[in-house]
């Protein structure tokens, strides 16, 4: 089946984010979305560690250790940026002020449950960070993920088997094969990059529309 690259997927997500949106991009692949926001479209990026108006990574020599993103990578501040403390930052999330967040996932259920913080492995060291706050806080919670795991299992599932991050919180799932909307009537294929709905149903084992 046709798959699109991670960069193509990031561009696809970026193109769906309207001008003027307040957006949080999760650690990892979602961070890529920032690189593909259309030229001239103003979108305000939020980072959980206390900034709105986050800019791109600094050019050589401009690294400022007091200016990092949620992944602890060096970033810059745009004109119009504002800093605030952690309680205010998470108040923005919890209070529903972010328009969009984009998160990675281990699993997403057909009812929008998200599992992205723990595989539940016995020896794993748990770490949750801001994932649970983002999952329940943004108006639109987009997941960006490969549809299948490396071993070929669907990350879209009837019911998550991994520990949950949030219940019924995901609104849309962007995968390398297709984009799915979570609706009251189940998963709806919003767009496919080549695969048919039947093929997608087959590899996910889910009823899709």
């Amino acid at each position, binding site marked *: 089946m046709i798959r699109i690259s991670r960069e193509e997927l990031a561009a696809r997500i970026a193109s769906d984010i309207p001008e003027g949106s307040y957006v949080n991009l999760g650690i990892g692949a979602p961070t890529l979305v920032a690189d593909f926001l259309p030229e001239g479209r103003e979108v305000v990026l939020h980072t959980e560690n206390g900034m709105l108006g986050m800019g791109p990574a600094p050019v050589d*020599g401009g690294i400022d250790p007091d200016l990092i993103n949620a992944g*602890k990578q060096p970033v810059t501040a745009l004109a119009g940026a504002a800093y605030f403390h952690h309680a205010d930052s*998470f108040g923005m999330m919890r209070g529903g002020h972010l328009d969009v967040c984009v998160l990675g996932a281990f699993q997403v259920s057909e009812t929008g449950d998200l599992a992205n913080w723990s595989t539940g492995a016995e020896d794993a060291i748990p770490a949750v960070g801001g994932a649970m706050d983002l999952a*329940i806080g943004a108006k639109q919670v987009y997941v960006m993920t490969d549809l299948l795991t490396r071993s070929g299992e669907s990350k879209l599932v009837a019911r998550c088997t991994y520990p949950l991050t949030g219940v019924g919180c995901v609104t849309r799932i962007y995968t390398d094969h297709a984009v799915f909307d979570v609706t009251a009537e189940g998963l709806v294929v919003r767009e496919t990059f080549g695969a048919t709905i039947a093929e997608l149903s087959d590899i996910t084992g889910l009823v899709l529309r």
Partner: protein
Amino acid sequence: MIDKTVPDAAAAVAGIPDGATVMIGGFGRAGQPVELIDALIAQGAGDLTIVNNNAGNGDTGLAALLAAGRVRRIVCSFPRQSDSWVFDDLYRSGRIELELVPQGNLAERIRAAGAGVGAFYSPTGVGTQLAEGREHRVIDGREYVLEYPIRADYALVSARKGDRWGNLVYRGTARNFGPVMAAAATTTIAQVDEIVPLGALDPEGIVTPGIFVDRVVSVGERAWLDDGVFVGGVDREGRAAS
């Protein structure tokens, strides 16, 4: 005359006893009060409960305090990082207790302590392992979990500038947990790059008013503030702890 300034980091951390609960500001290395932590290691207090967003990076700062065996228990949201090997080893060998708290609940619980809120209902974590055993409540059709304040005996925070009243301003994303921790501890100790005369900080821009601060120590200017040379925070190649 009110003068909360102290001459050095050793004086700043004096009196922290064994068994204390100590909040330590910072998100990763940004805003981590490394000089105060080093002084705390030298001071010798042990059996500590630490509240921090993470559980140490590399071998310095909070990681060094952990490595020195001074920490019995840590309350944090994200201990596992690419450079959290000190914590990882302690945790896997059962030599440290962990209370994992979603980051926003951590921040808000600390804020609640400072603001005298007895408890609050948060939507974060509902339906997850981290809310198991907690009291739930449906308000206006949405489910919430009851969260209690996190208080501390001491808070160690890092700020950009301070004055003799203890007023503080921060810098960039190094602000993070400093302001809420400063208000949540019985005794708050701030390290600053620079102590300025009273009145030199713009009253509109003071982020932590001195009422929340007990001791202020200058640790000197960090070189990179002026010349862009990197010290701490992220590694020299700009690769991040994920």
